[in-house]
């Protein structure tokens, strides 16, 4: 019962957004209307506008969001995998810093409010002419995702029994082949999961995009704020963009949830 109340609370705003995306401005400004076909007549007006010819920056922003998300996630997972594998597989000692301390240090970036870094990055980018550039955004997002990737992948690599790589060594394979033939195939699910999570983090970001871009490299969240600042917010249109922005993270979540149900390493040892 309590749960049902919470679920209603959690789901209603989402329903409202979806409904709004199919309303006309008149439906909206006549006060709240709830049920399609009874309260109001659904239209695809906002969608025509969104995908239509006289469209503003939707396609460019969408492409940017996609590019930044996919590239930064790729880099973060790639570089993160090296670091995570190293931290899981070897023993490090730099002065007082051992594996756990190194991992903690790298991950601690997530504790820092991004506003602290972003001002300095703004000035630096200004000097390097990286402001409002796609490369600059990809690098910034990679840095932003990297701690997350290391954190997730280190756990994952630690779950792969060390005996499997040892067995491959005894079976006659060198380091590189062991990684390619045994470790990475086993880590593939983890790499995929980390990739998707990093993608969503980049995709969802607002602050970096707000400060470091203004025209060429803007993303969908920036488009939403731009539409919002107009005097009469175009709710119907905003809702439609909002839905487009919401969909990838939700797909990822559904996919991950299914994924986590499966035992990844069953049957490996014993």
């Amino acid at each position, binding site marked *: 019962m*309590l*749960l049902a109340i919470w*679920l209603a609370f*959690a*789901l*209603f*705003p989402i329903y*409202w*957004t979806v409904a*709004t995306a199919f309303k006309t401005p008149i439906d*909206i400004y006549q*006060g*709240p209307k709830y049920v399609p076909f009874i309260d109001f007549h659904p239209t695809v007006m906002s969608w025509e506008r969104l995908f239509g010819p006289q469209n503003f920056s939707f396609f460019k922003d969408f492409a940017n969001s996609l590019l930044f998300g996919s590239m930064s996630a790729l880099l973060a997972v790639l570089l*993160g995998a*090296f*670091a995570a594998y*190293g931290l899981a*597989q*070897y*023993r*490090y000692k730099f002065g007082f810093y051992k594996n756990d301390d*190194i991992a903690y*240090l*790298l991950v601690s*970036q997530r*504790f*820092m*409010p991004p*506003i*602290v*870094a*972003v*001002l*300095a990055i*703004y*000035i*630096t980018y*200004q000097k390097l002419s990286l402001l409002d550039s796609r490369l600059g955004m990809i690098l*910034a997002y*990679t*840095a932003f995702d*990297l701690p997350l990737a290391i954190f997730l992948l280190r756990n994952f690599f630690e779950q792969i029994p060390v005996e499997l790589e040892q067995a491959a060594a005894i079976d006659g394979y060198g*380091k590189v082949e062991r990684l390619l033939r045994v470790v990475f195939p086993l880590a593939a699910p983890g790499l995929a999961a980390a990739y998707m999570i990093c993608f969503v983090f980049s*995709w*969802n970001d*607002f*602050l970096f995009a*707000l400060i470091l871009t203004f025209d060429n490299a803007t993303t969908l*969240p920036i488009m*939403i*704020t731009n539409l*919002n600042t107009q005097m009469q917010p175009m*709710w119907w249109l905003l809702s439609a963009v*909002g839905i487009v*922005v*919401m969909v990838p*993270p*939700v797909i990822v*979540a*559904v996919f991950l949830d299914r994924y986590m149900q499966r035992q990844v390493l069953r049957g490996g040892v014993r």
Partner: protein
Amino acid sequence: MRPSKSTARPARNATKRLMLAPAFLFFAAFTIFPLIFTAYVSLSAWNIGGRHIFIGLANYRSILGDITYLLSLRNTVLFTLATTFIEYVLGFGIAYLVNGVARWQRPIRLAVLLPMLLTPIVVGFIWKMMLDPSFGPIDSVLRHLGLPRINWLSSAVPAFMGIVLADTWEWTPFMFLILFAGLRSLPTEPFESARVDGASPWRIFWDLTFPLMIPASAAAILLRSVESFKLFDIVYLITAGGPGVATSTVSLDAYFTGLRAGDLGSAAAMTIILLIIVIVVTMSFLQLVARFGQSKMRPLSSPKDLASSRANSRTQVHETR
């Protein structure tokens, strides 16, 4: 004893270090350097055009006398306290309820998690619609119930509450996620033995569930409160800090000061103070957990127990190594 995981001989030390190099490079370029640079900027009069001179602590002095900044700071702290507390209690409750659900658990779980997955800026927009005084559904519900209408976004306290509401909606699922995972990873056998030992559900909750959830609770609270300190997106979209500066946060203030007003030096100082607060709060929270954990997890302790607990924890460390 845990055997070394190393399959390497000394010659491979280079490979081993090379693996960490890119991560450290990014860490240095996007965390360490900006941190130092920001600290330096905060000690300068630095405008957005690029001209700057060193002025020592003048920026700090001026912002600490600036009522907007002080309000933003207060808002940030209050906001963090309020949301973290509300979300923890709700999150624990929902996790406990969902954990007890036998059928349809997967779709329920997904539905509970949904708000957290949405892009924060979209969440901001959604709640701006929801709270709209003329066209929003909340307003209409209040009207139907015959309650007074609240002009959510144009007076100070309701606007603050509105932001808290939106944040609670968005981030309670995060608390749920961690606490639910915590509940699920609790071993089942102690609970079964408590049932056989004759403990009532109420006692089982307070003797077992709650103390065993302390690590998960601490993690959830810590992560969530650190995130709350960063609050920016939804406030930017819903109120932009308004009315006046009633809902401004440090991040927001720094953004407007630095990039809209062009005073990067002051903005940097604002963020440095925020960072110091986050560090202090995090550290003291961890300390608190360590102490609270000690006493809460040993409700029956006699002095003799406490004396041995230090030796005990050392043995434990040894075992896990």
